[in-house]
């Protein structure tokens, strides 16, 4: 089966005022439809860097990033928005909702980028919110939502464009355990029901049971891979 996404021998070296920081030192990883992949590792090990390179919001120093069969590692900056729009949905630790927009409007922004506007966007936004069990919060501003609710709106927003890959950086870190579980359940069901791949960066050991595969990263290298027993 061809992977949805593959990174091959990816390195990333940041320039810290002249001193090179080797955040990634040759990472190989393939992502398949329907799987939930957990990326575990200590602080500073390169998790966010890897996630950003996979999501095409950061350019690798060397190596290949193959999305939809095409290597985009060296693609021109102006070609990348289309790649991100088509393939990726991001979920952030800090939610990153637009504070001035209601829950439904937040989702509509993502739809708008896909060219869906007006009534069609409103209908699709309400459906997406219903899918995360927040139909009744459609016209609430983020400030009036709980952390768990905000993250569910963010997931609805990430899904609105119907991407094949969801990239989530510490999605439960800012949540209490009940909300965290709800969010993980949601991400889990996205993968199994819709043939998406979900990558979750986490510190949270409680999330391990949701994973199909756990990849440990240490000092910019993949240290071990564990397949979950179904």
């Amino acid at each position: 089966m061809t992977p949805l996404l593959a990174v091959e021998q990816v390195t990333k070296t940041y320039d810290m005022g002249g001193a090179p920081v080797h955040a990634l030192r040759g990472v190989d990883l393939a992502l398949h439809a329907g799987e939930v992949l957990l990326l575990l590792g200590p602080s500073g090990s390169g998790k966010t860097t890897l996630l950003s390179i996979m999501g095409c919001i950061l350019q690798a120093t060397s190596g290949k990033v193959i999305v939809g069969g095409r290597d985009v590692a060296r693609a021109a900056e102006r070609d990348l928005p289309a790649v991100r729009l088509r393939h990726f949905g991001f979920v952030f630790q800090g939610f990153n909702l637009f504070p001035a927009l209601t829950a439904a409007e937040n989702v509509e922004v993502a739809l708008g980028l896909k060219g869906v506007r007006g009534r069609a966007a409103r209908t699709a936004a309400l459906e997406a919110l219903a899918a995360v069990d927040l139909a009744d919060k459609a016209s609430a501003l983020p400030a009036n939502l709980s952390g768990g609710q905000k993250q569910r709106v963010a997931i609805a927003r990430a899904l609105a464009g119907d991407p094949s890959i969801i990239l989530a950086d510490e999605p439960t870190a800012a949540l209490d355990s009940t909300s965290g579980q709800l969010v993980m359940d949601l991400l889990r069901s996205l993968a199994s029901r819709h043939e998406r791949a979900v990558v979750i960066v986490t510190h949270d050991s409680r999330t391990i049971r949701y994973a199909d595969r756990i990849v440990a990263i240490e000092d910019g290298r993949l240290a071990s891979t564990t397949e979950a027993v179904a």
Partner: protein
Amino acid sequence: MASLARKNLFHDRVRFAVTLTGIVFSVVLATVQLGLFLGFTAATADVIDHSGADLWIVSTGATHLEGVTAFGEQQAFRAMATPGVARVEKRVVQFGQWKRPDGAQEGVLLVGFEPAGELGRPWNVVAGDVRALEQADTVFVDELYADKLGVTHLGQTAEIGGYRARVVGFTRGIRTFTTAPPVFTSFKNAQNYFGLREDQVLALLVSVTPGADVAAVQRALAALRDVDVHTTAEWSRRQQTYWMFGTGAGITVLIAAALGIIVGVVVVAQTIYAATVDHIREFGTLKAMGATNGFIYGVILQQALTSGALGYAAGMAIALAVATASQQGTTAILVPPWLALALFALTLGMCALASIVSINKVTRLDPAMVFKG
């Protein structure tokens, strides 16, 4: 895009109020300072611009109206004999000492003209008849400076250079750049006040016959010796240049205007920059969501230009109110349409520029910006 920009702006009312305040302040400051500069500049040449003459004949090398030296009136007869010349009228303009009815002294700018003539007459006359100036020792003063001159009503008597000066009329809104108020009198009276000989003049005002070419007449008059011949526009510009760029007072006004612009530009740029950077994480999120740079520029520019336009509208309204109120005083603030338009363009330009500078932060998106908790 439109609604995201608009809602971003109006969501945080306090932030928005701060942004608008910065822009309003800048627009008022720049408009008033530039308006003052234009007001002063116009005031220096008010009596030239309103003279109705086509050409001015003054002593050779004269740089400003108040600094001309006397020449003989035979030049007037020679000028009159030049083809294309319709009228030649004699003129005196000089600083003089005004002794108020209560005895206090004030400097004045005394303008002597020919009451029976057509050129260089006072305008905006609100009381009295210009022909009354044909009587000896009579003057017109401006209402704006009535207090300063200690004048409250017609018929009052002051002194100029030791001679009686009876107030027989008022004008309204004739200003000078210096602190010396304008006082109109007849050419003959002015000769007395300044102790000029009867055959001496300080300037000649010339009008050409209808249809005559002013430049051709000017060239013909150039044959006159020991005098310069300027068109009214040239002379006005020379006068303005002398006062605004050649004197300390003018330079002060010029510097104030320049500072007004600089401070205004800096405050607008800083305000818009801060307002944009405030939303930087949202723009980073948009980028991660697949928005093109063009889309993000659109949102940012729309936010900046909306703030700029609203701030400009409020600021210009205040500045125009101040300018209108200033018409009642001795210092006029002039806001011609071109100035209002230029400041509109400058405000929006600065808003666009400042927001684009902050956009650079987004287009080189640092993932840390969006992933931080």
